[in-house]
C-alpha cells in the first residue's frame, strides 16, 4: 500500500517536473518585466509577423490535410480497385513522416526544390519561390502532419465497414450524398480529433520549418523560430512571452481535445 502510494507520488512528481514546472517557468518568465514586458514581447512587430506566419501556416496546412487526409483514408480503406499490394505500400508511406525526423523532412524539400535543384531553379525562373518562402514552409509542415488525420480516421472507417454505404447506394444515394449523410456522421469526431492534433503539431513545428524557411526576419520567421532566435539573443522575456502564447494555444487545444474525445466515445 505504501509502496503503491510512493510510486503514484513519484509519477506525479516526475510529470510535474517534466511538464508543469517548465510551463510555470515560462509564465513567470513572460511576466518578468510585468504585464507591460509581456505586451512588449508579444507586441513587437517581428513577433506579430511571426505569429501571423504561424497562423497562416496553421490555416493552410489544416485545410489541405483535412481534405486530402479524409480522402486518402477513404481510398485506403474502401477502394478495392487499388489492389492489396499497392494499398499496403501506400499505407506504409503514410507513416513515413512519423519515422523520419522533421529536420530530415525539411532537408529533403530543400534538396528537391531548393534553388540549386533542377526543379527549384525552374520554378525560380517562373517567379515562384518554394524554399525560403511560405510555400516551402507549408509543404514542410504538410509533410510532418500528414499522417495525423489519416491515422485517426482509418480505424473508424474500418470498424463501421462498407455496408451502411452500400445500403445508401441501394437506396439511390450517389457517392457524394452517401459521404455526407452516411459516412461523415460516423467519422466526424475522429476528423475533428485529427484536426486538433494537426493544429497543435503545426503550432509547435520547429525543425522542418527552420531548415526550409531560413528563419528570415519579417519574411519567413514563425513563432517557434522567433522564440529560438530570441533565446539565442538572450532576449529571454520576449522569448517567454511568445512561448507563453504558444503554450496557451496548446493548453486550449488540449482541453478542446478532451471534450472531443468524450464526444467521440459517446
Amino acid at each position, binding site marked *: 500500500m505504501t509502496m503503491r502510494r510512493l510510486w503514484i507520488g513519484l509519477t506525479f512528481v516526475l510529470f510535474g517536473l517534466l511538464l508543469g514546472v517548465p510551463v510555470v517557468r515560462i509564465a513567470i518568465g513572460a511576466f518578468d518585466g510585468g504585464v507591460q514586458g509581456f505586451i512588449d514581447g508579444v507586441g513587437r512587430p517581428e513577433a506579430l509577423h511571426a505569429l501571423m506566419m504561424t497562423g497562416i501556416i496553421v490555416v493552410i496546412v489544416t485545410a489541405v490535410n483535412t481534405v486530402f487526409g479524409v480522402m486518402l483514408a477513404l481510398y485506403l480503406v474502401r477502394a478495392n480497385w487499388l489492389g492489396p499490394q499497392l494499398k499496403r505500400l501506400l499505407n506504409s508511406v503514410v507513416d513515413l513522416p512519423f519515422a523520419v525526423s522533421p529536420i530530415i523532412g525539411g532537408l529533403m524539400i530543400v534538396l528537391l526544390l531548393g534553388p540549386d535543384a533542377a526543379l527549384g531553379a525552374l520554378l525560380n525562373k517562373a517567379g515562384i519561390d518554394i524554399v525560403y518562402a511560405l510555400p516551402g514552409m507549408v509543404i514542410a509542415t504538410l509533410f510532418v502532419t500528414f499522417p495525423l488525420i489519416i491515422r485517426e480516421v482509418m480505424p473508424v472507417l474500418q470498424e463501421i*465497414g462498407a*455496408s*451502411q454505404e452500400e*445500403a445508401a*447506394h441501394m437506396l*439511390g*444515394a*450517389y457517392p457524394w*450524398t452517401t459521404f455526407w449523410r452516411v459516412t461523415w456522421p460516423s467519422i466526424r469526431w475522429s476528423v475533428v480529433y485529427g484536426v486538433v492534433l494537426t493544429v497543435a503539431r503545426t503550432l509547435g513545428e520547429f525543425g522542418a520549418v527552420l531548415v526550409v524557411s531560413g528563419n528570415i526576419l519579417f519574411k519567413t520567421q514563425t513563432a517557434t523560430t522567433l522564440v529560438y532566435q530570441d533565446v539565442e539573443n538572450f532576449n529571454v522575456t520576449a522569448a517567454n512571452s511568445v512561448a507563453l502564447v504558444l503554450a496557451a494555444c496548446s493548453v486550449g487545444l488540449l482541453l478542446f481535445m478532451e471534450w472531443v474525445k468524450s464526444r467521440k466515445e459517446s
Partner: protein
Amino acid sequence: MHVEVTGLNKRFGEFQAVADVSFSIAKGQLIGLLGPSGGGKTSILRMLAGLESPDSGDIVFHGQRVNDLPPQERGIGFVFQNYALFKHMTVEGNIAFGLEVKKWNKAKIKERVAELVELTGLSGFEKRYPHQLSGGQRQRVAFARALAPEPQLLLLDEPFAAIDAKIRHELRSWLREMIDRLGITSIFVTHDQDEAIEVADEIMIINKGNLEQKGSPWEIYKDPKTPFVAGFIGESTTVEDISALKGFKEAANWPGTKGLIRPEYIEIGKENEFTLLSATETGKVSHIHFRGSEWLVEVQIGDIKLVTYRSLEKNVLQVGDEVHVLIHRAYLFNNKDNWVMENSLKVDPLPVHI
C-alpha cells in the same frame, strides 16, 4: 420484375466465386439461394444488386440489360446480413432516407413512412435509434427501409442469420406473408435448408460457384439432380456398397455406384410389424436418441449403419434389439449418372387376391 441471368462468372483473384450461372425468375416469386457458406450465393446477390460487377455474363431485368447500371439506378431493395441500418438515424430517418434521396415531397414521405411503420409493426418505435432496438425489430426496420422506395425486386442476404432461433421462426412466416401480400419478386440467401424449404417458392442450390439445381422444395427433395443436392437436402447416410442390401442387388450392374438413404426411406420394427418380411434386412439397434417428437434410431446391418426415425406411438426399441429393416428406396449415383431405385422385393411376388 422478371429476372434473367445468363453465363454469370466472377473471380476474386484465384478464387472462382461464381461459375457460369444461368437462371430466370418469374415475377412475384420468392426464391431461396441455398448452399454452404462460401459457395457464391452472396456474390450472385451482390452482382444482381450492382455492388459487384460480373467478369462475364448478362443480367437482364424486364428485358433490359442492367450490367452497366449503377446500383442507384437498378430499383432494387436490399436487406443486408447485419441490416446495415444507419446508426445515427432514427427508425423514421432510416425508412425515409431512400425517399429523401429520391426527392419525394415531404408530405408524401411522411405518409409512406407511416404506412411502412404500420406494415412492419414498428408503431411506437419511430423515434428510436437502431441500438435501442432488438434484433427482430432491426430486421424489420431494414425490411421497411428497403421497401420504402417501392423497389421491383427485393434481395435479402442471410436475413435471419443474426436472430436467435425462436424469433427466427416467427420472422420467417412474417416475411413470407409480407412478401405474398406485396407481390414483390424476392431473392434471399441462406445456408439453412429448413429456412429455404419453409419460405421459398423455388430453391436454387449453389455449390462452389455452380448452380446445382433449381426447383420447388418438393422437386428438389424428391428428385435431386446431383449427388451434392441429394446429400445437402434433408438428412442422409451414404452407403458405399448398396448392392449388399436386400432389394438393391441390381445396383451391382453399375460398378462404383453408391447409395444415399434418407431416414424417412427406412422403416424398422419387430417381425410382426411387416407384411413382407422377404424385403427386409435384419439388423441390430446400436443407438437410440429421443428427438422431442420421435425416436432417432441407429441400426447396424452388417458393416452398414443406417439412421431412421420411429414414431413414439410404436413399441419402444432398446439398444441391442434385433430388428427388421425395410429400405423403401435409395438414391444411387456414380461418376456418370444418378437415379432413384425402389426396393425391388417390395412388390409381393405372389399377390393373393381375395
